């Protein structure tokens, strides 16, 4: 059961793919409250990868480290910090804890290279991320909405998506 701490992963990634790493700056998730206890900054220890190098970093994790099981791709919308964070989680088929790669892309232009052509496991994860967050995955063979209908406007999991309102209720009768 291989175990790898985020620091180890970062060190190995720094030697293998030095250009891929970005220094992560701590994020403020919400605007700091005017009074009361400050919530603190979000600063995960996992390596943050430059979007252009995501595919090579992920394939390096798979082929060199042997973490061949892509378990999860989670998108987090940090509205206040103005970025999306994509959390790629890999496991080793013999067991052990995960290794995580993080990618941050600006909110106004969320474009990430797709893993799907190299790693089909990413297919539905990426389609889900596209559907709910509007993250564009370049190179994905079938990047269509997966949950919402194709004509749907907006990305419902974004933090600035209106939680209430009936903008979409009348859609069907019009069309």
């Amino acid at each position, binding site marked *: 059961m291989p175990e790898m701490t985020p620091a180890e992963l970062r060190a190995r990634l720094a030697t293998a793919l030095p250009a891929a790493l970005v220094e992560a700056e701590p994020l403020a998730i919400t605007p700091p409250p005017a009074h009361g206890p400050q919530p603190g900054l979000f600063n995960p220890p996992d390596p943050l990868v430059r979007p252009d190098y995501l595919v090579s970093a992920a394939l390096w994790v798979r082929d060199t480290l042997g973490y061949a099981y892509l378990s999860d791709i989670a998108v987090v919308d940090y509205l206040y910090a103005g970025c999306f964070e994509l959390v790629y989680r890999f496991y080793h088929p013999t*067991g052990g804890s995960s290794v995580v790669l993080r990618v941050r892309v600006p909110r106004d232009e969320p474009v990430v290279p797709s893993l799907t052509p190299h790693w089909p496991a990413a297919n539905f994860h990426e389609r889900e991320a596209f559907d709910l967050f509007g993250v564009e995955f370049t190179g994905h063979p079938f990047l269509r909405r997966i949950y919402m209908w194709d004509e749907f406007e907006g990305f419902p999991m974004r933090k600035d998506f209106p939680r209430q309102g009936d903008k979409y209720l009348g859609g069907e009768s019009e069309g």
Partner: protein
Amino acid sequence: MLQTQELQVNIGPQHPSTHGVFRMLVTVDGETVVDLKPVFGYLHRNHEQIAEANSYLQNMPYTDRLDYFNSMANNHAYAMAVERLAGIEVPERAEYIRVLMVELTRILNHASAVGFMINDMGAWQTPLAFGMREREKILDLFEMASGARLMCNYFRFGGVVRDLPPEFIPNLRELLRALPAYIDELERLLRDNEILLQRAIGIGILPPEVALSYGVSGPVLRGSGIPYDVRKAEPYSVYDRFDFDVPIGKVGDVYDRFLVRIEEMRQSKRIIEQVLEQLPDAKGGHINPKARQNVRPPVGDAYARIESPKGELGFYLVSDGSTKPYRYKVRAPSFINLTPLADMCRGYKVADIVVILGSIDIVMGEVDR
């Protein structure tokens, strides 16, 4: 030459064997599948968005609705994620009760999953009815403990709602006497059945390398011959205290997945027996943490996963320091296990599609979220 034309058939969204509102856009040449596109989202309710508007505890009953067959497993994964995020300790007895409940869930899920798969093959409900009988008994037990049969909502951060009622353990012991008889009978009924063999062997083959690259998990992955079980690979809760085996398949076809499920029921029964042996008495700690109604974890993120009966169920939570999760992501096993469906079905007959789908064992509540 006659002019031939490929036929496009919509299997679903309203179809008897799509296990919910699931649509497969199938291109068939005669009866042979040329291409298949899974289309879903008919049950999409933006579960994650709802969860981000709720407090941590309020989400617990919503997780029940993900995979409504295995609400206990969903509860477990979510409770673990929040406990990791907030650093909550769970008393030992509660851990054992959790394991007990999740293993019972596994048995009931596999019993009905096998039944549904055989139903898709065209059996007129009999294996399903036998499975449902055991399921009912387990649901009775769940009802005793949690108050509900399906939407159990039984786990809390740092424990469970309430201790097992006194009549629970005797009834469970009775049930454990029935389980081997049920599993043996199911094997007698189906294992050597020539019709089932014809329908299951060599159908929907998913080779191990392909299975891994598709990121499938649970019995589908193990059926393909990869002994990856989260309970063993990254033991959580108290799973490192039990002896149990991991069954794997040889070829990765429908028959392997079917056999793996049957064997997993036996292993779950083994775990339950060990739980009953090791279960600490009630003095071990207060297992209903009423005080933890308003969890306010520090800023950070946490991912917790369990081996749910359908595969790896994970919850990814990001906390911004408030009482509501900032991000709540479900890694749903049914959803990811659908990824290779098109590849598994290509080249087989229309009748095989439903069997392959049945052998993946999906629940639309979880796929669509």
